């Protein structure tokens, strides 16, 4: 559990982060979202003390970070940034093994961990281990950057716009990957983004920053359904609110008995997927399947109801 307690950073008399208090539960993803200059990066960097807070403190599992030497603290916290920051003169294996090397892990343990992580990120170890960053695609570089941040099994993973440099299609894949890996490893992640869509898609909790202040902290559904300020409402974007709501509802939750024509959608798809399937093919209902077996259908009526219900 990470407790951020009235943390403040003042630059030249102006607060960049203003008395932010929030708690991050272990094993969850919290996305800090806000416009540029709202203090997200500063808040994130105060967690691993790349910036020293002007006042307030951060506690990790009850222990104040101020009591740990900064470089030792950082070895316990993964850190991934936009543009990945890989070392161009080290191959993939040395890049991923950087923190374990700092922690003096034995060589074979590092090697095994590198291979394990590459496999986890769907990169064949034998093929990628010895490549240099310049020999990877943008998406692969970014995955290696995240793998490096996870290498020493940190208590906490901090990510500053990690997908900012990726094009939209690779970006969606990278987000899904992160979600899958976070679930598999049970990691605690605090991620900074300026994109509300990314926050909703990835976050168990979303923290909205505006002018250095935390203006709302809650579940994605909460943020969409009850924006605390006009600023939050703006970020969510009123026009697309029904759509955003739909993207939060898995088909499994609303599936009903009965059949429907056409190709089936997987049960872990969202109502938004079902809506676009209906509109695209002109159907009024779509079949739903789980692991190849049909389990029922979702009708356009249900979709409408869910979109209107909480909108």
């Amino acid at each position, binding site marked *: 559990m990470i407790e951020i307690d009235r943390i403040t950073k003042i630059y030249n008399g102006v607060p960049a982060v203003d008395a932010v208090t929030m708690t991050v539960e272990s094993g969850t993803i919290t996305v800090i979202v806000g416009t540029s200059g709202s203090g997200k990066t500063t808040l994130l960097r105060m967690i*691993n003390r*790349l910036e020293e807070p002007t006042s307030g403190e951060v506690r990790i599992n009850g222990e104040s970070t101020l009591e740990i030497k*900064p*470089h*030792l*603290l*950082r*070895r*316990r916290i993964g*850190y991934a*940034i*936009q*543009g*990945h*920051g*890989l*070392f*161009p*003169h080290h191959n993939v294996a040395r890049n991923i093994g*950087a*923190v374990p090397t*700092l922690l003096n892990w034995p060589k074979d343990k590092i090697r095994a961990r590198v291979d394990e992580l590459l496999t986890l990120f769907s990169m064949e170890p034998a093929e990628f281990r010895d*490549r*240099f*960053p*310049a*020999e990877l695609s943008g998406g692969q570089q970014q995955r290696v*950057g995240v793998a*490096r*941040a996870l290498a020493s099994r940190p208590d906490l993973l*901090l990510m500053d716009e990690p997908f900012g440099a990726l094009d939209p299609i690779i970006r969606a894949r990278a987000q899904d990957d992160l979600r899958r890996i976070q679930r598999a490893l049970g990691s605690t992640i605090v991620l900074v983004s300026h994109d509300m869509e990314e926050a909703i898609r990835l976050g168990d909790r979303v923290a909205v920053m505006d002018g250095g202040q935390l203006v709302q902290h809650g579940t994605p559904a909460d943020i969409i359904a009850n924006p605390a300020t006009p600023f939050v409402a703006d970020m969510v974007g009123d026009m697309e609110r029904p759509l955003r709501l739909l993207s939060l509802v898995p088909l499994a939750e609303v599936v009903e008995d009965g059949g429907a024509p056409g190709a089936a959608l997987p049960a872990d798809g969202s109502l938004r997927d079902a809506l676009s399937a209906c509109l695209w093919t002109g159907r009024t209902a779509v079949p739903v399947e789980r692991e190849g077996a049909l389990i029922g259908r979702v009708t356009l009526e249900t979709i409408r109801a869910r979109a209107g219900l909480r909108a």
Partner: protein
Amino acid sequence: MAGARHGVSHPGVLFAVLGLAALLVPFMTLAANRIVAAEGVMAWSVAPAALTIPGLVALVLGLGLGLPAARPRLRLLGAVLGLGGLLWLLVQGASGLLDGAGDYARVSPALGVWCLLTIFMLSMTDALVQLAPGPLARGTLLAAVLAALAVILWSGALAPLSVLQEYASRKAAFADAALRHLALAFGSLATAALIGFPVGILCHRNRRLRGAILPVLSFLQTIPSLAMFGLMIPILGWIGDSVPGAQAFGIAGIGFAPAFLALVLYSLLPVVANTVAGLAAAPPASIEAARGMGMTSGQRLLRVELPMGLPILLTGLRIVLVQNIGLAVIAGLIGGGGFGTFVFQGLNQTATDLILLGALPSVALALISAIVMDILVELTRPQAARAA
């Protein structure tokens, strides 16, 4: 690439035209003794026709092979053939011209030889640039050239040439000068590196220090070399006279110490500036990541900044080494020793051969150092960048 570009190489045409023109000026000179004016001898008259024709053919053929633009290997071969022809004619002329010319007669290479030598070396460089051999191939090539040069000199085939006659009468002095020259150039390089690397690292970490130090070093660099060596005389002379024991260490207004100090001062800017530039070469995101993962500033320096900046650091050392080999010649003026001693003696006595005895090895040393350092710089490039 081969076959993609037909036609003639433009530098090749230039070299061929210049090379043919160079054949029309005196190739060697013959003088009855060291004092009287020498007379020029054309390339085809340095020896009987039966002996000069093979050399002349090789020269012309060498120039011709330099023409096809798409065949760099052939152009390289042409340059080697041309150099071989040049050497052949020199050897024939060296012994042939002296035959029956009297005991004090002196024979020297003339304008034609120097022009052709330059042309074939440029042509060779041009072909090599096109071939872009790897560091290993370049090292092997350099070793082969040096070995050939050593064999030629050692065989005595060129011994009748006046510059080698000067050498023969000064063997001990030459060895001493060579050692001094190397000590001046490499010693000042090592000292400058010892001082410059730490200063560069401090400057990299501290912007204000950088702002204070780099202008001072730049200023030092702008002092003309003669003035710098001249300045050393009163300064070190004063230290030698007033600091007890200083003279025991050889500190005096003239000699090795002031020359050495001047060279070190000249070396500091390239070393410090390239250290700063090298350390700044690591991408900011990599530095941020290194900090974020918990590297201490020392670990960052050793694991990220230095390895990535090494090619730039070595480039600084290369600049210094080549520069100091040249400047060390001028150190001869204040008694610093080295090849400059011969150059300035020769200038005083208007003895061209003596000047050459100092100048030729200095030029060769500078060339060799430049090539070796370039190879080192390339070897320290990150592997991926080299492969790409």
